[in-house]
């Protein structure tokens, strides 16, 4: 499966692709459909501004502010918009809460739907055939690939993103973080913990 592993791609595919993309940009620019400077700005935004830190702040806020948590679970789009410091999210964000009884995991079996505004661009594994095929059938096996083991009685809820709704997992707040600031808590919130293939870091796992 050469979904992401360029080392296994043919060298000719890479250079052929590069040439093809360059030619396409030339055509679209000459036609007046695209503005290369705007393309630069889009790339730069995804490289530097939109990433999982946005989601981590949402989660840390929910951990420290019960009213916000309630609002987030009721209408994530509205709640996140009210935080202000995150660029406008689409209309269709839903936050799902992990509890001792239930663990949530997000997938898009049909393509690669993912909450870009709060998590950035999806990692290659999220878009790959192994994840898309197995998440719905063998989620505990997938969790084992991420070195996550859950109690055998915990309900595993897999959300397949088959429409324009986007899902964000609200993981459980780690023990031993009483009195922590929102910023410090956000350092515990990993991208994978908001997809449901990981758990937040424990207090001992980050630099003090």
């Amino acid at each position: 499966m050469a979904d992401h592993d360029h080392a296994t791609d043919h060298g000719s595919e890479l250079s052929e692709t590069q040439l093809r993309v360059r030619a396409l940009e030339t055509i679209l620019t000459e036609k007046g459909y695209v503005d290369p400077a705007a393309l630069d700005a889009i790339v730069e935004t995804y490289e530097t501004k939109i990433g999982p830190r946005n989601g981590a702040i949402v989660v840390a806020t929910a951990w420290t502010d019960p009213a916000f948590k309630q609002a987030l679970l009721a209408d994530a789009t509205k709640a996140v918009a009210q935080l202000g410091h995150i660029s406008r999210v689409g209309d269709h964000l839903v936050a799902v809460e992990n509890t001792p009884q239930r663990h949530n995991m997000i997938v898009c079996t049909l393509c690669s739907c993912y909450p870009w505004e709060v998590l950035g661009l999806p990692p290659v594994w999220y878009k790959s055939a192994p994840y898309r095929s197995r998440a719905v059938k063998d989620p505990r096996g997938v969790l084992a690939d991420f070195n996550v083991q859950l109690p055998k009685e915990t309900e595993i809820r897999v959300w397949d993103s088959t429409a324009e709704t986007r899902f964000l997992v609200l993981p459980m707040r780690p023990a031993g973080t009483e009195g922590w600031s929102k910023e410090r808590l956000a350092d515990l919130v990993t991208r994978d913990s908001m997809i449901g293939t990981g758990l937040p870091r424990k207090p001992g796992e980050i630099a003090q």
Partner: protein
Amino acid sequence: MNGIHDMGGMDGFGKVEAELNEPPFHESWEGRVLAMQRAMGYAGAWQIDHGRFAQEALPPQVYLASSYYRRWLLGMESNLLERGYVAPDEMAAGHALRPAKPLNRKLTTEVVQKGMARSSFYRQQQGPARFKPGDRVRTKNFHPQTHTRLPRYARGKPGMIELIHGCHAYPDSVAVGQGDNPQWLYTVVFDGRDIWGPDADRTLKISIDAFEPYLEPA
């Protein structure tokens, strides 16, 4: 369509392998492809489900052998050709050879931040919702040759309505040029054993987001 993209439940693809400190793009062309796709979408050249359908229509061996953004590129090229924004001789020449087909708007640097915001898929409802949370439903068993968002593994299965997400543009119509045809959208939850049989993990629940035409009362 019953394409290779519809992967839920397939076996044999192996372990999920995460990359440590993965960059947003592995090659600079990937960012250009993503940005061109966003710009053409903003311009109204096609809609998201046209983009998906074009990738689903790739031959399975091409789909599997192509990297993620390579698939985006191939899908974008077919949409450009099919909709007459670029002609085959222009694609071959690598240059525009004739004037552009007009588009509604253009993503310029002035509007780029606003233009990157995700558009809303809410549409005016055409009638009351047929189902409410808690209702038992069964997904339909159908196999259209065109674009649908009902995965194969979830067809003909009993489930329960859990959430109502309002009325949305209907991908199955949009992708074949039949307009938004707005439909109610629901989260439908299934027991793992109803999908994968009696040996499935008894703690597993799976949900999909299903448009009303995918569902019948059970």
